[in-house]
C-alpha cells in the first residue's frame, strides 16, 4: 500500500527529468569535450552545460550546478576542472586525461595557428591595426565581465573595499599576486563572514 502511494506521488511530480544516460566510455568523454572545445567561442561553460546535461545526459541539472560550484571554488580554469572531475568520476586519472585532451586538442591547434599568423604578419600596417582593434574589443569584453560580476557585491561596503584594495594593489601598485592573495583572502573571509 505504501509503495502504491509512493508510485502515485512520483507519477504526479511535475516534469520528471529524462533518465540519465549510462556513464560515457573514454572515447565518449574525449568526443564530448572535443565538441565543447571546438564550438566554444566566447565562453565554454554554457556549451559544456548543454553537452553534459541536455545532449548526452551524463549529469542532471542539479548535479552539474553542484559540480560547477566545486570547480569555481577551486583554483584553475573552471572548465578544465569540470573535465578533470567528470573524467575522474567514471574512469579515474585516465578519464581525466581523456576529457582534458578532448577539451584542449582543437583550441590548442587553432590558437597556435592564429599565433603563427600574427607573428608572420604583425608588421604589416593593416594587420597591426586590425590587432589594435581586436585588443581594444577584447579589453572591452573583460571590462564588461568585471562590471557584471561586481553587480552582486555593490551594496556591500566591506566587499567593495576588498575589491578596491585588490584592484589598486595589482593595477596601480603592481604588487605580486601571491602576496595580494595571501593577505586579502583571509582578511576578506574574516570581514565578509556575516553574509554567508
Amino acid at each position, binding site marked *: 500500500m505504501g509503495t502504491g502511494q509512493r508510485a502515485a506521488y512520483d507519477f504526479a511530480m511535475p516534469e520528471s527529468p529524462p533518465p540519465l544516460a549510462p556513464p560515457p566510455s573514454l572515447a565518449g568523454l574525449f568526443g564530448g569535450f572535443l565538441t565543447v*572545445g571546438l564550438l*566554444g567561442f566566447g565562453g565554454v561553460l554554457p556549451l559544456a552545460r548543454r553537452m553534459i546535461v541536455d545532449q548526452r545526459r551524463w549529469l542532471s541539472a542539479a548535479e552539474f550546478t*553542484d559540480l560547477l560550484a*566545486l570547480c569555481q*571554488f*577551486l*583554483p*584553475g*580554469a*573552471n572548465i*578544465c*576542472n569540470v573535465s*578533470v*572531475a567528470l573524467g*575522474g568520476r567514471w574512469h579515474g586519472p585516465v578519464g581525466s586525461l581523456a576529457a*582534458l585532451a578532448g*577539451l*584542449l586538442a582543437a*583550441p590548442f591547434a*587553432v*590558437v*597556435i595557428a*592564429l*599565433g603563427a599568423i600574427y607573428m608572420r604578419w*604583425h608588421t604589416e600596417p593593416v*594587420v597591426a*591595426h*586590425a*590587432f589594435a*582593434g*581586436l*585588443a*581594444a*574589443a*577584447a*579589453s572591452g569584453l573583460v*571590462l*564588461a*565581465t*568585471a562590471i*557584471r560580476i561586481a553587480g*552582486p557585491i555593490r551594496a*556591500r561596503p*566591506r*566587499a567593495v573595499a*576588498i*575589491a578596491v584594495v*585588490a*584592484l589598486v*594593489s*595589482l*593595477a596601480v601598485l*603592481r604588487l*605580486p599576486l*601571491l602576496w595580494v592573495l595571501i593577505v*586579502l*583572502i583571509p582578511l*576578506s573571509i574574516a570581514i*565578509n*563572514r556575516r553574509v554567508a
Partner: protein
Amino acid sequence: MSAGPLPTLAALFAELSMLAVGGANALVPEMQRRVAAEGWMGPAEFGALFALAQAAPGPNMLVITLVGWRVAGFWGGIVATSAFIVPSGILTYVVAGVWERFREARWRRVAQAGLTPVTVGLVTAAAVALCRAAVTDVPTLLLVLATAGVLLATRLHPLWLLGVGAALGAAGVL
C-alpha cells in the same frame, strides 16, 4: 645544451595555476607583469595574444598556451599549458572525490563569500591592465567603452564584437 626558458615557463604557470581564483582572466595583471619582467614581451604584445585567445574557440586560459608558444615554440605551448593545468587539476581530482561531505558545510559558504570580492578586484584589475595597453587614443577608448556597453546591454555573441573591433582597426578607423 641548456633547457632555455622551459623551466621558467613551467615554474611560472604552475604557480599561477594555484593562484587562479576566479579563472584565468583574474591572472591577467600578474601575467602581463611577469612576462615583461622576464623580458619576453611588452604589455601591447601580451594584449594582442590575449585578444587572439579570446577570438579562438575554447577556454580563455589559452592565452597561457600562446605565451608559452611565443616564448619557446611548440614545446613552450605544451609546457606552459600543462604546468597551468596539472596542479589545479590534481587538487580538483582529489577534492571532487570527497566533495559530498563538504557540500553543505558552512565554512564553504563563508570562504566563497570572502573569495567573491577578491575575484571582482582581480578581474577589474585585468580590465585596467588590458585597457592601459590597448587604449592609445580617443578612438580606441571609444571602442573599449562601446564594446563593454553593447555586451552589457544586449545578448550579442562576443565574437561579433571582436570581429567588429578587428574590422574597424583594419579599415583604418582607429
